[in-house]
């Protein structure tokens, strides 16, 4: 589960995006790696492009040292661009994406979209 710490899912450039994530109903020992990232991606007629603004991978000691009884909090300063955009041929959207890799090879993905800027989304 991902939760954005904010009253609304719209952030301005250079603001800090604060979010927390946690995994429930899964034993901590079953998790082999976690990747938390803040990404933008294009959708629409063209081939999809992906840009990674922030990427954090937890494995081994860093993973076992974390206290999973409380949600993991991450703070990421946001960039100036690209701003969220909804055009005719393409759409630029931002999201927080967390991937959990389990020991049995299963991969769980959770995603929480948000807007950067107010070009196509009024606050």
């Amino acid at each position, binding site marked *: 589960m991902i939760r954005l710490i904010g009253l609304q899912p719209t952030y301005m450039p250079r603001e800090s995006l604060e979010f927390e994530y946690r995994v429930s109903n899964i034993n901590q020992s079953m998790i082999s790696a976690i990747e938390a990232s803040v990404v933008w991606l294009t959708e629409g007629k063209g081939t999809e*492009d992906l840009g990674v603004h922030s990427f954090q991978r937890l494995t081994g000691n860093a993973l076992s040292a974390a206290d999973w009884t409380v949600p993991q909090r991450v703070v990421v300063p946001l960039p100036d661009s*690209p701003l969220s955009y909804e055009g005719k041929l393409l759409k630029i959207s931002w999201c927080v994406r967390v991937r959990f890799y389990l020991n049995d090879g299963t991969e769980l993905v959770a995603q929480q979209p948000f807007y950067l800027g107010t070009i196509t989304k009024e606050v």
Partner: protein
Amino acid sequence: MSGWWFVGSLGEALFFASFFLVGVVCFTTIVGWQFLSPSTQVVRIGYGFWLLTTVSAACIVLGAVGFWYRVLKVATSDEHREIISQRGIVPRPKQLGSKSILPPSVPPLTPFTDSPGAKLAFRLPCEWKGTGALVAYGLFAMFWNAMMAVFCVFAIGGVLKGDIQYRLFALLIPGIYIGLRSGQLFLKSYIQAIGIGSTTLEIEDLPLIPGQKYKLLLVQYGRLVIKKLSIRLVCEEESTYHFGTDIRTEHQIVRQQIILDQGRFRIDWGRPLELECEISIPADAMHSFQSLHNAIHWKIIVEGEANRWPSYCRNFPVVVYPLARTSQLKQPS
């Protein structure tokens, strides 16, 4: 994509792995034999040896790169792969100086600011789409006519010796016609390109910032009577995608505003037309954007219709920065 993606990826990885193995076996056999038992060697050092060595080395490199690319595609997430590609094999040094203030995914400003204007700050570069066609017409006309000239020399030489080659003459007639037509086409395109005269556009400041106004100066050279001239500010989306085995690019104008619409007037040599106007970037405008397959371009388009000339269109790309970056750029250093 159809079928089970895992089987496809596995097949690709196995293909490149076998390529790699074949390369290694060939390379070690050729090179090892050469050094360990020169007396029984089959391929002596020479063109054949170097050719086989190069092909084997190419197989090794191609197989290794292809195999690891496929493995990474299966074993890592999209985000992780993107981070690996950003960092590269050798970590990139951090950007310093002016480059560090470039906003992410926005085209660089350098190609637009390296040419100062005569009256305003910058002269914008012109993007003319007819250049490729003009060069292609010219090259075709040149090579075709050169070939026809050689054939003509043979044909005339034969006539002078009293040996008239009727088949060659039969081929020369359509060949010369194609040569003349291609030359005519090239000359027509060339005259159209230079006849109307160049168009320059100067702008007060760059990058453009939403909500701001900028002065523009249009200078039209040449000797002609212009029936109509217009300047438009255009925002255009561009998307590139695969369609079967083709790669297609689609353009869509999403926003445009007419900056100037001028009626009939005359231009003479040495007295170019100069028009001043102002553009206003909408406050809610999307900034310029460039990624691998998608882009948002801003450009100023000058379109004209002249007497006895075909209508012309010249594009001057500009860069619009996001609003947040503006405050930093405008702060005194």
